[in-house]
Structure formats: C-alpha cells, structure tokens
C-alpha cells in the first residue's frame, strides 16, 4: 500500500516491456516526426489503426491508456474548438446568429444547475459535458426572447472542421505514443536510457551518468519528502495553522511554517546522504560500474525495423 506509482508506470508483460528503453525513447521521437510529416486525415487514421494494432499485440489495455490520457482531454477539446472558431478558410458550412437574451441566460443557468446536479454520475462525465455544451449552443441560437443584451454571428467553415479533426487525431496519436512509453518503462529505466543516449554529450562537458544518478536519487526521495510534507503540515495544523482559510497575511505565514521545516530537513538529509555516499566510496566524476544493464534484444531489432519503415513511409508520402 505504501508504494507510490511514480510517473505512470504500470507493471505488466508484453513486448513493450521487454524493449530496451533506448529503443523506446528513440522510437517515440522518430514516430512523432513521422506523424508530423503526414498531411491528410486518412493517412493519420491509418497511423492510428496501426498504433492500435501494435497496442493489442503488445497486450496493453486500451482502456488503461485512455485513462492515462484523461488529463489531456481538455487540451484536445480546446484544440478542437480553437480550430473551428478561428479557421476561416473554405466554404461556409454553418452560420448562426447567437443572441444573449434574458431567455437564453435563463436557459443556460438552468442547464448549468442540471449539469452540476448530474455531475455525480461520474461515469458519464464526458457525455454530460458535451450535452451541456450543446445545450448552451442551442439556447444561444434559438432562445432570442426577452431583452437582448448582445448578439453575434457564429460561422463554421469547411476547412475549420477538417483542420480540427486533423489536429485532434494527430494530437491523439502523439499522446498515445508518449503514454505507451511512460506506461511501460520504469522511471529508473527511462533515466538510464536517457543517460545512455546522452553519453555522446560528454564531448561538450555534460556528464550523463551523474545526471542519471541525480534523477534516480530524486525519484527515490520523492515519496519520502511527500510523506514528510504531510507530517509537517499535520504538525503545524495541530498548532492551529489553517492552510485552507484565513487572511492572505496569515496564509503566507502558514506556508512559511511548512516550507522552512521542509527545507531544513531536506538540507540535513542531503548532508547525511552525502556522508553515506562518500563513506561508501562514491567520488564524483570517478568511473563506476553499474548493476543495472540495458540490453538490446530481438524485440528491439524488430521494433527498430518497424520504426525505420514507418518513418520512411511517411517521408515518401510527404515527398510524393
């Protein structure tokens, strides 16, 4: 129970898990480039289909990936509407005069109340949101009764719809790619993969192994520091610090009462840790061996072939 899932890593089986993190990192970058090279919606749909097939082959639960992407839905919706509202190319598909009137305001208020009341049905949250937005639109479009405050013309263009669908699918594919990476790769493996890939940067003075050690120590201490923050907050709350309410001046003091102990303990901790590392013969900059090892296997060869051919295909499509 005390395990905290760092990032989104979800233990599992399947070939995504067997792949070398380096292949995955390079693969995600290469495939993202490939996706950006595609120009039409059918091409993107084919890419999405291939992606879904890969996920199924890799025994990843699509539901789990969709769940991981949930925080980004807002971004998708925003992108969608942004394109529809501001892209004014091609022929006109829909033109409507929207009016803010007493009737439409009343309807919107009623809809908002209804929407908030139904918000308990968490499973249908997304559908409810869509329904609410549609309701607001229809109220503005058709309920122009009573005193009118303002009105404006809302136009949807053909190219706008096309672009919004295109951009949303492209985003969806890209998000899926990065979700697969974080879902199937332990943060430590990810760090080690990055370290290994950054090794050539030694020429310009960036030491990737130290960077990796810093990241792995940070990962190790995140749960400890969270736990501590929790306890400090409880200790100060015991002295009447109310982190939720109060005037701004009190609030600032209360936040200081949380931050000062956190920093002081962190300093002490880093001193202790430095001592422990030093006495275990850690000398910054010295050569070390590594317990964990990255292995480039059969799966990686297949994956590389797939990635290279995908990239090649999209370049060909772009040039033709």
């Amino acid at each position, binding site marked *: 129970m005390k395990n905290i899932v760092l990032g989104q890593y979800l233990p599992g089986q399947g070939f995504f898990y067997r792949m070398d993190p380096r292949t995955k990192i390079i693969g995600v970058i290469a495939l993202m480039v490939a996706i950006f090279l595609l120009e039409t919606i059918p091409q993107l749909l084919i890419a999405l289909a291939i992606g879904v097939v890969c996920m199924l082959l890799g025994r990843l639960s699509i539901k789990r990936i969709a769940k991981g992407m949930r925080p980004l839905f807002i971004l998708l919706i925003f992108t969608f509407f942004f394109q529809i509202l501001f892209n004014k190319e091609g022929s006109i598909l829909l033109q409507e005069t929207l009016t803010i009137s007493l009737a439409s305001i009343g309807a919107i208020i009623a809809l908002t109340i209804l929407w908030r009341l139904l918000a308990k049905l968490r499973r249908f949250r997304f559908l409810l949101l869509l329904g609410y937005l549609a309701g607001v639109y229809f109220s503005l479009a058709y309920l122009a009764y009573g005193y009118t405050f303002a009105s404006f013309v809302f136009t949807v263009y053909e190219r706008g719809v096309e672009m919004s669908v295109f951009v949303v699918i492209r985003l969806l594919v890209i998000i899926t790619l990065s979700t697969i990476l974080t879902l199937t790769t332990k943060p430590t493996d990810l760090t080690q993969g990055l370290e290994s890939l950054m090794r050539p940067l030694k020429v310009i003075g960036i030491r990737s192994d130290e960077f990796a050690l810093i990241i792995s120590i940070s990962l190790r201490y995140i749960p400890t520091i969270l736990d501590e923050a929790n306890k400090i907050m*409880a200790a100060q709350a015991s002295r009447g610090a109310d982190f939720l309410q109060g005037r701004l001046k009190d609030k600032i003091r209360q936040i200081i009462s949380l931050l000062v102990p956190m920093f002081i303990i962190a300093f002490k901790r880093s001193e202790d840790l430095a001592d422990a590392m030093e006495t275990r013969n850690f000398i910054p900059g010295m050569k070390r061996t590594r317990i964990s090892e990255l292995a480039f296997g059969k799966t990686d060869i297949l994956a590389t072939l797939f990635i290279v051919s995908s990239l090649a295909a999209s370049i060909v499509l772009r040039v033709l």
Partner: protein
Amino acid sequence: MGIHFREVSFHYPQNQLTFYQAIADITLQIAKQDEFICLIGRTGSGKSTLAQHMNALLLPTEGSVEIFGSLITNKRDKKINYNLLRKHVGLVFQFPEYQLFEETVEKDIMFGPLNFHVPPEQAKQIASETIKLVGLDETYLKRNPFNLSGGEKKRVSIAGILAFDPDILVLDEPTSGLDPQGKIQMMELFKAIQAKTGKSIIIITHDMDLVYEHASRVIVLHDGSLIYDESPEVLFRRGDLEQFHLQYPNTIKVLSALRDRFGLDLDIYQKNLPDALLAIKKAVAR
C-alpha cells in the same frame, strides 16, 4: 467531556497512496482531567493514526470521534470549526524539526496562540510563561531554535503546544533520541505539568519502564486493533505480551529471573529500584 471514540475505523481505498496505518473498530474514552495514558504497540500498529484522530487531523472512515462535544465523522461538518478543535487537544509530533520554523524561540511559541487569535501582546506574555513551564529560562526566548540541542528543541516544541493551553496533551515518542538523563528529566517535566495544570496526558512510547512507572492507564494497539486498555499493573501481569512484540519492564525481567533462579517467594511486580530492593530483601529474609 474529553474524547470519545465510537467504533472508529480508518483506512484508504485500495491502491491509493497512503502514509497512515489503518485502524479498526476502536472504542475508547479519554477524560479531560488527570489521565496519564501510555499508548503502546509496535511500529506500524496504528498509534500515530489513532493520535491524529484525537484532534481531527484525520477523519474516521467509519464510526465517530467526539472531541469536546463536536462529533467528528467521515463527512466534514460545516458547523464544526476543525481548526478550533485542535485548541482542545494539543498534539506534539515526534520530531521537533517538523514544527520549529521561526527565527526565535519566542516567535515560534507564539505561532500557536496567534493562530487561535490571541492578541500579540498576550501571546508574548504566554511565551515567557510557557518557556519556564518546560524547564528552560527566559534567555532562551531570544535564541534561534535551530541552534539548540536535541533535548532543548523537544522542550521548545512542547512549549509551542502548551502555549495555546490545550485541555489534553498528546505526545508522540517524546523521549526518543534522548540520553538516559534527558529521558528522566522529560518525564519529570510531564509529571510537573500534570501536577500544575491537571491536564490529561497521553504518551506514545516504546519504553516499557516509563510505561510501568508513570502510566495510570495503558492502551495497546496491535495491527490497528485495540487489544488492551487497562492499568499497567494488570497489563504486565499478562503472559502474552511477547506475541505482540512487546517487552516487559526491566524490573519485572530482572526480578523474575531472580525468582526463577533461587525459587524465591518474590513479588516481581515492582515499579522502581527502591521497591525492587525492598522486595528482594523481604523475600530473602523469608
């Protein structure tokens, strides 16, 4: 009045990150005055979780806790000021480092009273009174709390709680990390505070000598359940404490070894050295 736990359970839904041990079905009452309770149990038995229910830092998942007349359940009640409840039950955490943050001891002690809307002038007055109550003199008020020794920091952190005059004082391992002399002084301090103010005191500890000598009541937790709630005299006469990873006080250990070795008619239940010596002398004389 005081604190009343009624069938209190606390747990998190599965797979959610949690820093607290679960507790289950706990019913107990703590009086407002003159109790000296020790809360014991091995690490992870739920002692801290239980303590944090006493001032509503945690809300029970099931059951209810009545704290000085306010009924605390898993739903936040808008009519209850949770913050003001904490004025009734002062909770001192194990590490003073969790709470010290001001640049002077005085300001740090004043933090609690100011949060509970005591006027600054009066809070200052309180600080100079409480620093004496914890056995330090007024010269400490202007010192930086981070430059104090471990024992002094502990005292200042206790003063920071005493300053808002809670009815009940709960201390999480107040003697851990102190050397033997420091431990004795700390316990004397609590005895003195109780004698002076009559406040009920609850101490979480692993030190059975301390429990046997000072507690008037012992609450034993094991795997989140309350297994014993009785006087130390009754508790340490039980033969099964080791199965809960609990030890016996040193006096009992030494005296029972003596009794078994020489077949003495010896009353092994003695709380301190002088009593133990008397018992030995009596037994040998027989």
